[in-house]
């Protein structure tokens, strides 16, 4: 029987694919493009659907990266977004390259984790159907050890610069989810509304606003997620942005003729050595978001 692969389609939810191995199954990925090596893609999963082995591997990768103080480490990657200066995401927020810039950011961060655990992929937090901090990110300790998804140590240089700018923050990331006055988390209908928008400019603008709401919902007043300068130090930042990236992927499937305006394609995405055009197809970056995935062995040829 040939492999059967069901990709995203219109489904917004991961629908119960279960397996015990840390690695995703091998499967056909369609025609091979010049940019896409003929190897299986990795699948980013809903964090609530990860197996115990996958979650353990992901946590191990985060812990290892958090223990590295040079550019291979968590703090360096988190600091690209905000402090320490320069605040590189400035070229992205409020601009049309918001989605491509963050896709590149996730890509390089995922590679950083994969240097520690070869098979890990970033999970996504579907706040539209799970309007709470996911359990995997909300447990302070796991098996007697600190949970690297609960909190992270903030780069001391970032803290010093933030304090100089009258934005002092705690040395370990914290959250104030669902504080009084926080904007609501985006609902399924909110996502459906942005997915229905036919223009990329319109879509990215409205999706970025929903993204901003999630930052404020998690961070509240004193939490790191609510502040551009410190948001990426919170481990949940990456699951939130994987969800945003996934919604973009869903939009791409619904509007295959729309796309990013041609005038943007050659834009660089500093500090990443990548252009907007190089972020368009997630498959060329080696990953997909699966609603369902099954597979099997081939002919062995």
């Amino acid at each position, binding site marked *: 029987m040939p492999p059967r692969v069901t990709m995203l389609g219109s489904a917004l939810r991961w629908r119960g694919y279960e397996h015990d191995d840390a690695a995703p199954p091998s499967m056909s990925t369609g025609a091979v493009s010049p940019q896409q090596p003929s190897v299986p893609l990795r699948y980013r999963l809903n964090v609530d659907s990860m197996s115990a082995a996958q979650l353990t591997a992901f946590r191990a990768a985060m812990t290892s990266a958090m223990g590295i103080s040079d550019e291979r480490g968590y703090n360096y990657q988190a600091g690209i977004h905000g402090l320490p200066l320069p605040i590189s995401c*400035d070229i992205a927020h409020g601009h049309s390259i918001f989605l491509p810039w963050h896709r590149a950011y996730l890509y390089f961060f995922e590679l950083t984790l994969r240097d520690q655990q070869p098979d890990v992929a970033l999970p996504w937090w579907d706040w539209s159907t799970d309007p709470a901090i996911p359990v995997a990110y909300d447990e302070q300790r796991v098996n007697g050890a600190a949970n690297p998804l609960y909190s992270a140590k903030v780069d001391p240089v970032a803290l010093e610069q933030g304090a100089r700018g009258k934005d002092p923050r705690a040395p370990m990331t914290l959250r104030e989810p669902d504080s009084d006055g926080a904007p609501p988390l985006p609902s399924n209908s909110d996502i459906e509304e942005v997915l229905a928008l036919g223009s990329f400019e319109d879509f990215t603008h409205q999706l970025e606003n929903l993204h901003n709401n999630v930052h*404020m919902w998690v961070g509240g007043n004193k939490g790191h997620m609510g502040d551009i300068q410190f948001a990426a130090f919170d481990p949940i930042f990456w699951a939130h942005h994987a969800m945003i990236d996934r919604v973009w992927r869903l939009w791409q499937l619904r509007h295959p003729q729309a796309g990013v305006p041609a005038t943007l394609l050659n834009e660089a995405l500093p500090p990443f050595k990548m252009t907007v055009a190089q972020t368009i197809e997630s498959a060329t970056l080696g990953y997909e978001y699966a609603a369902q995935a099954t597979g099997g062995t081939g002919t062995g040829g």
Partner: protein
Amino acid sequence: MQIFVSPVIENPAGGEQGDFSRADLIFYGVDHSGPSFEARVFLNNPDAKAGTPRDDASRYAGSFTVFGHAGCAGDVGHCDVPMGPRDPFDRRPPHALTPQTKTVIVTDALRKISDPEVTITVVPVRPGAEGAEVVDALRFERFSLLTYG
């Protein structure tokens, strides 16, 4: 500015309910150098406050959220946005704090306004463990209310 209440402006829908497919309220030149906040927009409700419900009865129209810089971490001048014309050979990206444009889709809310005139109220709210508060962080250059046939 804390709460913004616009002068009375003409309702571009002319009070003819449903005679448009979409309505956008666009804020230009939005400052994002300060704290993060949610700007809640109400139509024909000049008394809206932080505690005003987001519902039809309150004429809530939607919101935009500013993901703010929360101050300047650089040296003197670091956060000053250059003014005036730019050298055509200057290929650097725009200054980090170049003001932004925010669009709130207000189609449903405007359809419920039958008056020929409308006022826009914007309430900037910051959440907190001790309760929501209106923050003095809302700054923008102008706004437009547009409808599309």
